């Protein structure tokens, strides 16, 4: 049984995607453990981390999936996206190619993820101002055209990391909580149509006193 700390109202699966080297793993470690590693190695397979935050007095537990950018076509692909309600699509503001590949990642999401998945475009490494290759406005416009949220972050100096996760989780929460209100809880597994009628013979009142089973 979990302790009080483990309790949560909502559990959301969020995936991190984007080219390798854009800083996905460091975004994750900054958010979940407040750690940053300048010499981090390429991720092997899939990594997971969780962290709970408060939104509207509800505890939301984020289960974040991180994968190596170059392993897109491994066996795990479909499972990676399965059940995900949010995606942080990360590029490196200092590497234009990683931004150009955003379209490919969007296509991948369309192919594998739920169509209602909340997507946030994240321009990481905003601390590298002098090396900027992707203007903020350009990315912002792109996001608007494609109905994505947008934010620039720096896992290195922590800028906006908290905000990025907080925003996407709040957005998901809004959608989910609205959906819950709309779908009234009438869809529980009540037997209704599925039941076979069992003919029960009329009860003959027996002389035997009904003994309680408990002694």
């Amino acid at each position: 049984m979990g302790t009080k700390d483990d309790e949560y109202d909502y559990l959301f699966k969020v995936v991190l995607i984007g080219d390798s080297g854009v800083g996905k793993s460091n975004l994750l470690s900054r958010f979940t453990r407040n750690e940053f590693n300048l010499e981090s190695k390429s991720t092997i397979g899939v990594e997971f981390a969780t962290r709970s935050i408060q939104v509207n007095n509800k505890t939301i537990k984020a289960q974040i999936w991180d994968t190596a950018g170059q392993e897109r076509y491994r066996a795990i692909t479909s499972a990676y996206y399965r059940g995900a309600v949010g995606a942080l699509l990360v590029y490196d503001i200092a590497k234009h190619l990683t931004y150009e590949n955003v379209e490919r990642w969007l296509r991948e999401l369309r192919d594998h993820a739920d169509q209602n998945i909340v997507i946030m475009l994240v321009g990481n490494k905003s601390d590298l101002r002098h090396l900027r290759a992707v203007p903020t406005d350009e990315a912002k416009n792109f996001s608007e055209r494609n109905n994505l949220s947008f934010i620039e972050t720096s896992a290195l100096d922590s800028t906006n990391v908290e905000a990025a996760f907080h925003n996407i989780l709040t957005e998901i929460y809004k959608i989910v909580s609205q959906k819950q209100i709309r779908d009234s809880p009438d869809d529980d597994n009540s037997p209704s149509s599925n039941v076979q009628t069992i003919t029960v013979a009329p009860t003959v009142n027996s002389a035997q006193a009904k003994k309680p089973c408990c002694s």
Partner: protein
Amino acid sequence: MEEDLRLCTIRLPSDLDRRFCFEVLSPTRSHILQADSEEDCQTWVKALNASISQAYKDTMHESDKESEEKSSTSSGAESSQGDNSSAQAKPSKEKLRMEQLLVVPGNSNCCDCGAAEPRWASINLGVTLCIECSGIHRSFGVHMSKVRSITLDTWEPENLKVMLELGNEVVNRIYEAKVDESIAARATPECNRVVRESWIRAKYVQKAFIKQLPGVNKGNKLRQWSVRKKTRGSPARLLKKHSLEETSASKDSLSSRGGDSLSPSDSDDLTSGLLEGGAPGARRAVLSVSNMGTRISGSGSVGSSNSGAASYVEGLSRSSSSGHGTSDSGNVTATAATSTVDISTNIVFGEESPLARVAGLNKSLDLESSDESSPDFDEDSVGDGDGSGRGVAMDGDQFHTSWEDMSKLDPNLLLYKASGARNLGVMLEALGNRADPNWVNLEEEGRTPIMKAVQTGSLAACEFLLLNNAKLDRRDKSGRTALHHATILGHTGQVCQFLKRRADVNAKDNQGKTPLDIALETENANADIVTLLRLAKLTEEMKESEGYMGNPGDDTFQDVCRDFTNMASNNPEKLKRK
């Protein structure tokens, strides 16, 4: 409430504070229902039981109609709904399973009473059964027999693999090796329950008809023994690839299933291929038996010392053309063997005729002593899972395990060796002789049979052991579990197989390393294994802190496992490291 009544059982709970209650038990849930009176309660129970058996009858009826789509001929029973939807979702899969199962020799009739069209199976014994016999199997409990419906249940791909490796003919050659009807009369399709039950009890519980392993001191001159290695690939697949496969190894196993289609000339090829594959200089004689007759090729000492030993070999050998225990070629073997008596003899367990080999010895011993583990590793580091169907290059003698002294022949070591040879027939034989599935081999790092089976990369061998009560929590001398070993060897299929059965991801070896630690430090770490281990760990952690929304992580884990299992079973090449 429940989708399928057939999966439910009704019982009266005894330890309840309430009265007039009955319980509907399904595989996943238990519903306690309370009636107004005792009579009501009884009526409910009766009615429910009646509809359960009605639901079964409907199903039997439906499945008899075979190819026809199961249409809505239901009688309005609750169960028919679930049945129809599942049948429509994957009709071809079930049909394919049935076809695959029924072509295995002997499987077209119930293993125990011979009734036609068996629709049930015991997945740990590897046999098909009629519904009557399956009921008796069930009554003995799952530790003896794990019964599944061929048409209704969902099957793990590994279970099917086990079934394809065994089959009624193979199993009966072991469990009905020396039938003694004074112990129990043979069950027939029409026999009553009492006869059926005592036959099945004698056969599997008392194991009364199993031939004991040949002992050392019974005047026979058997000196050494070994277990024949099974080659990669399920028989069915090998059959299809018949013409493509060139290696002697694949032809070799083909012969075991190819059965009637095997022509004498085929067996000629087979023999020569085998000889070429043999270790150079080995003074081994191969007693080759084709459908045409007997032919002895090769050189060196041939033969079998006495008829007892010969008939034992006969009993073990799988004859391709034999039907109900009428082992033509096996008989020939026996005669031939007795005619060429020699001083010392080896036996090879699980030898497949027409290649029943009663091999020469002495010199062969030192050649094979190095054979112990290296070929296993070489062969298996190439890829994961089994059944890749690719030709296995044969260098040296890879056809059987190292020779062991007859004095060491006990069921436990036999099971261990057979696990390393992925030879399910011999494994079953050893278990039939009451081998301990968790026996610890102190001479090999304290490993258990499943750790040995992991080395072969065979999903079927591991599954067979797991189905027969092998435990995953056992550790060898270095503190490693089977999961550690699968990780070290990079066998993704096994890792997934063990995780599905809740192997402990956090188990630490003597160096304090979990399988994940090992996976990460391996050079070119296998990303899939790392992912599976991490996901299993996450799932476990999530389970400890389950929230209102249930556990989505668990579903994902199941899904991922299913994906990997299917891949490991059907397209193992996809799991190969690049």
